[in-house]
């Protein structure tokens, strides 16, 4: 092994035996694994943290991943120019990387409500800069340390290749992914997860410092670590960091696999917050009455009612006014049901069955027939929610409705004035649902309610309620004044019959929702996109051919990861539970790929081209499936696909490193190319191509990118 005992940092020969035992370079290698474990967990936690602070849509997710990968890339690049080769410096760096995530999360929570106005959702650019600034210190260091570790190891005289480093890092990433997704997320909140996943890195750093006999430094480090763990495991401290956003009256807080659940109580009012958004407050009579009575009063006879989400508060009491035989209530997150029940916010009674599962999955698999299906879901501004507003979904919903049964849901729109973008949104959904129902009626209440049925529909809700002798608090007195005939006519006439249909694999409404979001802030992403493209073109023009190959591979692998996440989401819906498994599959694939690449790296260019062709073939298979089949596919197929694709990517890293030559120390440039490509791929595929042009266009774009990189290698 390449331990160098005569390093000036190890001048004390008396300690040699101990140091040999510990083997300094081995410690550094273990610390790379530790950094991998920590970084994956911190990455997922950071995404969840930002989602809880800002709009929980794919734009935020993509921005976090984009900033993460880009700044990591910059960090990697910076290490190329950093000449100091010091184990002490490395140890300090590793320790800081171990401790920083907690500070980062606290900073996100603290600065969110000090920089922005409390309660405000900021727009695209403020979110982008906030994410960039607050995540940059950690991501820069994590990008820096990887190639820097190689420099330090080599400086100690040990042979260690970029490929081997890549493999080591992957081992850490995989361990971190598995630990977070399959164990920690089910049992711990964010602070504890950070502490547990940083443990290895912190311990190794401390051991390194001891080995270096830096006792003063060790004292400082030890005190910092003690404070770190004390804070991370102190529940009251974690709650205190949340009080900026939620106020001091938090009665329950937990991180479920689906997001952050917070329950606050102010005077007598409970408010449920899901991932930072207040989704329900007690005494919300208007919402309960509108969502229940508009559809149910249309039916002569009501037997079984299916309610998808929104069962808290007065909802069940309003449904029970129709004396249904039973109510099935589907709610995705068991943790939400548990908390709501614990605080008496969900008191269903004997006729109600609570089904903790994904609504679409339930509707797809159910053999029951319902008189009415009531969806009470957020706006379709995420892939997760858009699945409930597509042609495929409405088809499934119709299948489990009785003859002349009714489906209802609502979308945000202001009936006082319908903007162009909202007309597009309403029209797209209207045309989509109209494919399956003879009658679709829009009622412009507090939100715009869609009623879809083959039976007759009427907008005179109070009349229908009077006939059934049902009394209400809101509808009785306010309906005719707010939902005027003229407003009903106007909204129903505003529908454009030529607007696109919204489908699973061509989610037009997400595109419209993104436009609406940008309209709200009077901004456009065009500057951002143009700057980004300019910078990428500049970057690509500077890098070596092999680095371009890795750039395109990073782009493709993240693009494919987005495609898989999206397809999986559409088909199975339980993406939040499986996202860890999918990411882990991608990470797992890289490992054998890198091992194979390391073994066959002497084959050089041929090896690269083989991997390229393999990727193109895999992408074409995906395209054929999406275009012609779109059928249900066993989950394992997606996992295997991700594994295989990333294995081909993994092959390329050591081969490209070999071609450029280890002596030129290519790790920094290669890591940077891979990370920058991955960042660009995430943003381009996840945020732009899939929502704007659909999944097929995204695959075709990836095929073109890979064909281009193949040509670049062929021309070498």
């Amino acid at each position, binding site marked *: 092994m390449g331990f160098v005992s005569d390093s000036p940092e190890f001048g004390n020969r008396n300690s040699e035996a101990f140091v040999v035992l510990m083997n300094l370079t081995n410690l550094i290698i273990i610390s790379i694994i530790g950094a991998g474990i920590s970084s994956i967990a911190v990455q997922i936690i950071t995404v969840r943290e930002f989602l809880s602070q800002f709009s929980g849509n794919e734009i935020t997710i993509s921005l976090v991943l984009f900033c993460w990968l880009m700044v990591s890339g910059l960090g990697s690049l910076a290490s190329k120019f950093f000449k100091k080769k010091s184990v*002490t410096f490395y140890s300090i760096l590793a320790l800081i990387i171990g401790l920083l995530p907690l500070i980062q999360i606290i900073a996100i929570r603290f600065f969110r409500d000090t920089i922005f106005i*409390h309660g405000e959702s900021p727009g695209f650019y403020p979110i982008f800069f906030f994410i960039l600034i607050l995540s940059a210190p950690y991501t820069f260091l994590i990008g820096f340390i990887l190639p820097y570790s190689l420099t330090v190891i080599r400086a100690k005289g040990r042979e260690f290749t970029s490929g081997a480093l890549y493999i080591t890092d992957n081992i850490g990433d995989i361990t971190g992914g598995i630990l977070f997704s399959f164990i920690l997320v089910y049992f711990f909140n964010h602070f504890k997860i950070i502490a547990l996943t940083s443990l290895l890195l912190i311990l190794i750093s401390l051991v390194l410092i001891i080995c270096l006999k830096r006792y003063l430094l060790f004292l*400082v480090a030890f005190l910092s670590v003690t404070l770190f763990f004390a804070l991370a495991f102190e529940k009251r401290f974690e709650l205190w960091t949340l009080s900026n956003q939620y106020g001091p009256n938090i009665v329950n807080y937990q991180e479920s696999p689906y997001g952050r659940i917070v329950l606050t109580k102010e005077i007598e*009012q409970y408010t449920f917050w899901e991932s930072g958004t207040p989704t329900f407050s007690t005494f919300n009579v208007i919402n309960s009455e509108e969502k229940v009575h508009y559809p149910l009063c249309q039916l002569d006879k009501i037997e079984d009612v299916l309610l998808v989400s929104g069962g808290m508060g007065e909802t069940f009491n309003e449904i029970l006014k129709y004396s249904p035989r039973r109510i099935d209530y589907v709610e995705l997150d068991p943790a939400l049901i548990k908390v709501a029940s614990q605080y008496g916010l969900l008191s269903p009674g004997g006729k109600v069955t609570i089904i903790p599962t994904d609504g679409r999955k339930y509707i797809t698999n159910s053999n029951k027939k319902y008189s009415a299906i009531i969806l009470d879901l957020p706006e379709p501004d995420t892939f997760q929610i858009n699945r409930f507003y597509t042609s495929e979904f409405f088809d499934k919903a119709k299948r489990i409705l009785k003859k002349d049964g009714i489906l209802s849901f609502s979308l945000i729109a202001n009936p006082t*004035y319908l903007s162009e973008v909202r007309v597009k949104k309403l029209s797209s959904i209207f045309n989509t649902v109209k494919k399956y129902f003879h009658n679709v009626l829009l009622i412009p209440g507090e939100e715009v309610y869609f009623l879809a049925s083959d039976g007759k529909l009427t907008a005179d809700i109070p009349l229908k309620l009077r006939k059934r002798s049902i009394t209400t608090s809101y509808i009785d007195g306010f309906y005719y004044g707010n939902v005027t005939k003229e407003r009903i006519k106007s909204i129903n006439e505003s529908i454009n019959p030529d607007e696109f249909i919204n489908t699973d694999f061509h989610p037009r409404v997400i595109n419209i929702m993104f436009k609406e979001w940008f309209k709200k802030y009077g901004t456009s992403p065009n500057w951002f996109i143009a700057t980004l493209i300019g910078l990428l073109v500049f970057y690509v023009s500077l890098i070596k051919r092999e680095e371009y190959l890795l750039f395109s591979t990073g782009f493709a692998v993240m693009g494919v990861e987005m495609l898989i996440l999206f397809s999986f989401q559409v088909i199975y819906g339980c993406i939040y539970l499986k996202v860890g498994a999918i990411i882990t599959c991608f990470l797992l694939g890289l490992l054998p790929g890198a091992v194979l690449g390391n073994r066959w790296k002497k084959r050089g260019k041929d090896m690269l081209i083989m991997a390229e062709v393999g990727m193109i073939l895999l992408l074409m298979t995906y395209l054929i499936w999406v275009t012609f089949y779109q059928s249900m596919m066993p989950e394992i197929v997606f996992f295997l696909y991700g594994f295989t694709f990333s294995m081909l990517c993994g092959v390329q890293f050591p081969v490209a490193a070999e071609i450029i030559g280890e002596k030129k120390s290519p790790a920094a440039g290669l890591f940077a190319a891979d990370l920058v490509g991955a960042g660009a791929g995430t943003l381009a595929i996840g945020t732009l191509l899939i929502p704007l042009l659909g999944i097929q266009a995204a695959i075709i774009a990836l095929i073109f990118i890979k064909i281009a990189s193949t040509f670049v290698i062929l021309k070498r």
Partner: protein
Amino acid sequence: MKRHISRKEFLKEMGLLSLLIAAEGHCLSPKNKGEEKADIRGHVFKNDAPKSLWKWSKEGFHYTTNGKDVQCMVCPNRCYLTPGDRSVCRSKINIGGKLYSLAYGNPCAVHIDPIEKKPLSHFYPATLVFSIAAAGCNFRCLNCQNWEISQRKPEEVHHHELFPADVVRITKEKNIPSIAYTYSEPISYYEYMYDTARLAREEGIKNVWVTNGYINKRPLEDLTKYLDAANVNLKSFDDDTYRRLNGGRLQPVLNTFKLLHEKGVWFEMTTLVVPGYIDKPEMIKRMCGWILKELGPDYPLHFLRFSPRYKLNRLPATPVKTLELLRDIAIKEGIHYVYLGNVPSHDAYNTYCHNCHKILIKRVGYNIAEFNINNGKCKFCKTPIPGRWS
């Protein structure tokens, strides 16, 4: 040669790191209290005016010019526009050294509403009001429910064509007693409102102004000649909150109340109770104290329940108990008529006589179940009830 980092160097590096963190913290830290306060007020849109006027343009009222630049004097923003600029409210432009309104005869929202929806509880109850709005607003409220018209330029919205005479004609044809200038901010389409109100008055139709009250004295004095009622938002009683949530200032709004009172225009006040901002009992007490001193106890005050919307969507709905508490405070302080809004079926929708406390108007939403006012007096104790009654 590998370089050894000395303890001194290490300490130096840590010191630098600390400085860096401190510097970052300083950059990110909230502004010191008392120094620069968060202010979301709008700005003039430089070189944003269309090249030429359109059909729905009208030379502005109340502006000054030096032949090249103009200054709009309608609202306290007092936008100074060089040629080609557009005002904060997005409706006024400088073309050729003259101020023009682009919101004249082109309402983007036209509806018929119950008068109670404005809300006005003491102004001809259970009547209808023809309601119009053109695009634009001189505020930037984070919780605006009509942001798609208030935060847009007149050219960006689709609109009807209804010039003042058309508005009056239709209102008359439909036999509706009043016209409301509402939804967005009517101050931004002042000229359109003023001309319509003047014609309406000639035809015996009443004019209702639903506003943030952010207007200068002279234009308001002119407008009051034709106004019959107003609902003015008193968004807060704290200047900092006005700047932070609305992009305006408190004092001009208070001046508006005083002038309306002085001119004898009937008005009601609306306060949206935003949790964490406008729910402090102490502030409400101060607010009521000012109202009693300057305006008297008779103008109704409406506390509305907030629900998350537009950009201010990360706050919970106002607890009903908070609204009740604030209502109790206002009544205790001496305001005679305090209502709650956005809480269906609440007793505070009803009107109670301030003298005998019996129900004067029992409301079921916008409908009236009981009406106990005769000739403007309480049917039970004969106390005159402030307001405008048929």
